[in-house]
């Protein structure tokens, strides 16, 4: 698993919580502040620390900073611009210039490392695309090179156009550098001016750059993603209910946490009888040499319980995994980890929801009948169950084959991504089977 950095979007935004998503460096980043009902989104390259990755992340912090200080027009306003015929790429490009200068004026040097394309451009570049790129290069370290490269193509930009673009970038840079609020009226008139001069004619014109360099958004607020977010259901607070991403839209099922009375003690299990000798100041006098003045004085020994796993264990009881979770095996686990919190989870019989059954905690465990009468079927609630595990004591272990599904026991890439994020952020170790877990415990002792 890749090592992910831990960003701090809530510091820049002054609000939270955030859903943090990692992506490739070439895919850029995007961010959206949280609202009363939804968590924020902070997406960028967190598994690499190249100069470009630092620049992308700094740019996204800049967007959140602008939002916090209410310097950029609201999302509703930006959406209104699009409805009034402004192409998203113009909105995004101009905002990016403001954000970059906002951050540079505050002393950020990383943002200058942003580049606008990675794998080259077509020789024939539409005029409006060339103009947006020319605009966005403002203030970046390789601005001259990028602009020369643009002009070398048949982009059809005249010297008047370039003068106009320079004046526009100056205005935008001044807005950002001086942290002046972007007046929606002035911003709209500037965007209209740009679009009427360079195109495109339609606000929905296809962006040819998407085809050239894959995901074009190397830096900046992906307005498409930003707007689409309204339709998404992103986890609220620390609990995950539903997620969607890409083309699939499979949410986690709602999870019920069952806490039956824990009536049996784990301290009398057969494996618990083994004890280790601990040197101290009371007990049997075993080490006379330690009683000498120069020694530590711990000449006495007492027998103590062997240290055992005292964290939390989450066991996937869905489908094929359910066969291996027997009462006997659970008792074997508790012999080795008597004070661990153990939770079993699975989807219900209809696979529309699921439950998590807490079978052991504080050296007490549930009766055999409780475990045997607990109905379970598919996965359905892997995400919420892992969120529960992330709130338990460390070390945290997840016994699962790694397959995760949402409602109706269907799987999708976004669910896997979510689970990987939880595993990384909550420091959870996955073990494929209970037997593997027991074997590991045997080796430790």
């Amino acid at each position, binding site marked *: 698993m890749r090592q992910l*950095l*831990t*960003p*701090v*979007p*809530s*510091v*820049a935004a*002054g*609000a*939270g*919580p*955030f859903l*943090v998503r990692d992506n490739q460096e070439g895919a850029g980043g995007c961010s959206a502040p949280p609202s009363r009902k939804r968590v924020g989104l902070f997406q960028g390259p967190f598994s690499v*620390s190249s100069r470009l990755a*630092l620049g992308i*992340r*700094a740019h996204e*912090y*800049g967007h*959140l*900073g602008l939002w*916090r200080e209410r310097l950029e027009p609201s999302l509703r306003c930006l959406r209104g611009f699009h409805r009034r015929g402004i192409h998203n790429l113009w909105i995004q490009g101009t905002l990016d210039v403001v954000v970059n200068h906002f*951050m540079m004026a*505050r*002393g*950020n*040097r*990383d943002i200058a490392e942003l580049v606008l394309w990675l794998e080259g451009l077509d020789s024939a570049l539409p005029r409006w695309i060339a103009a947006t790129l020319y605009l966005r290069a403002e203030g970046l370290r390789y601005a001259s090179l990028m602009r020369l490269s643009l002009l070398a193509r048949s982009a059809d930009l005249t010297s008047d156009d370039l003068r106009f673009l320079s004046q526009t970038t100056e205005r935008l840079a001044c807005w950002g550098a001086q*942290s002046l609020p972007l007046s929606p009226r002035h911003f709209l008139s500037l965007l209209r001016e740009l679009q009427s001069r360079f195109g495109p004619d339609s606000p929905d014109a296809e962006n040819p750059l998407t085809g050239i360099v894959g995901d074009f958004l190397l830096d900046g607020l992906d307005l498409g993603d930003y707007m689409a977010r309204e339709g998404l259901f992103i986890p609220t*607070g*620390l*609990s995950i*209910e539903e997620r969607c991403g890409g083309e699939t839209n499979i949410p986690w099922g*709602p*999870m*019920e*946490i*069952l*806490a039956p*009375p824990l009536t049996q003690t784990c*301290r009398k299990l057969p494996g618990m009888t083994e004890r280790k000798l601990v040197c*101290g*100041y*009371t007990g049997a006098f075993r080490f006379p040499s330690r*009683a000498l*003045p120069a020694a530590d004085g711990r000449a006495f020994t*007492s027998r*103590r*319980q062997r*240290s055992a796993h*005292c964290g939390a264990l989450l066991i996937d009881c869905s489908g094929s995994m359910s066969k291996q979770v027997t009462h006997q095996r659970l008792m074997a686990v508790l012999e080795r980890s008597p004070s661990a*919190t153990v939770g079993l989870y699975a989807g219900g019989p209809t696979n529309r929801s699921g439950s998590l059954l807490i079978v052991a*905690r*504080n*050296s007490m465990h549930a009766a055999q009948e409780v475990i045997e009468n607990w109905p379970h079927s598919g996965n359905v609630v892997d995400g919420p169950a892992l969120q529960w595990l*992330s709130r338990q*004591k460390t070390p945290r272990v997840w016994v699962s084959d790694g397959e995760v599904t949402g409602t109706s026991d269907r799987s999708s890439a976004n669910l896997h991504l979510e689970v990987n994020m939880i595993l990384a*952020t*909550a420091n959870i170790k996955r073990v494929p089977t209970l037997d593997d877990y027991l074997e590991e415990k045997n080796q430790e002792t």
Partner: protein
Amino acid sequence: MKTSTNSQQKQQWSPSEWAGVASIWTLAEIAVAKLSRVFLWGPPGVGKSYLASRSGSSPVQVTLAEDLTVQELMGHWVPDRIEWHFHLGPVSRAYQDGRALVLNEIGRASGSVQDFLLGVLDNRDVASLALPNGQLLAPAAGFKVFGTSNTGPDQLDPALRSRFEAEIHLPVPNAALVEELDRRCLGLGGALVDSYRDPERALDPRRVASFVNLLSQAIPVRQAALLTLAERAPDFLAALQARGVRLPCDSY
């Protein structure tokens, strides 16, 4: 059977608002001043132990761990030439002298230590501590116990938990620390508090305080950030810049 669902978790309430106080720390200060057995829990570095240690005169602090034995807390025999003397442990000493006892990381104590603490935490009317030397101690006036932990009270043994008079969740840094950070570096305290709005990615208050300490010793900003926040340093600085935090040194 107790049940809870995700939808129930969504209905968050603010305990401090409900109780009519400015912050949960105000409540914690009341509890520490007025009660004698208080359990404080919250993320590392928010100032739980600091608050507990400010109560009473010369408090005794012990950080519990699984390998710490009862004898180390209660007391043990120590050889002195041809005689053995009983040496009081920190718990017995605080018990006898009527001092505040701060038990850090109480949830990490071994089972036997937790069992021993049951007697220590007993109500004053019935509490007594029998030492191996035959002495029977009664809690002196002023004896208080404050337990701190990073995990919630549900991780404690139920009998131990019930002996605390109050349990207080402190999810955000101490207001005094925030004010101090703001005094030394305008806006940094607010940034630290805001980081707790996203608890999984909150900044460690100790590291932020160290960062400011380094800055005040004229260490350049980037070096100070890298030393204290390691790989989070670029993100930390970028977020501060986006927020407009002014650091003692002019240049980032």
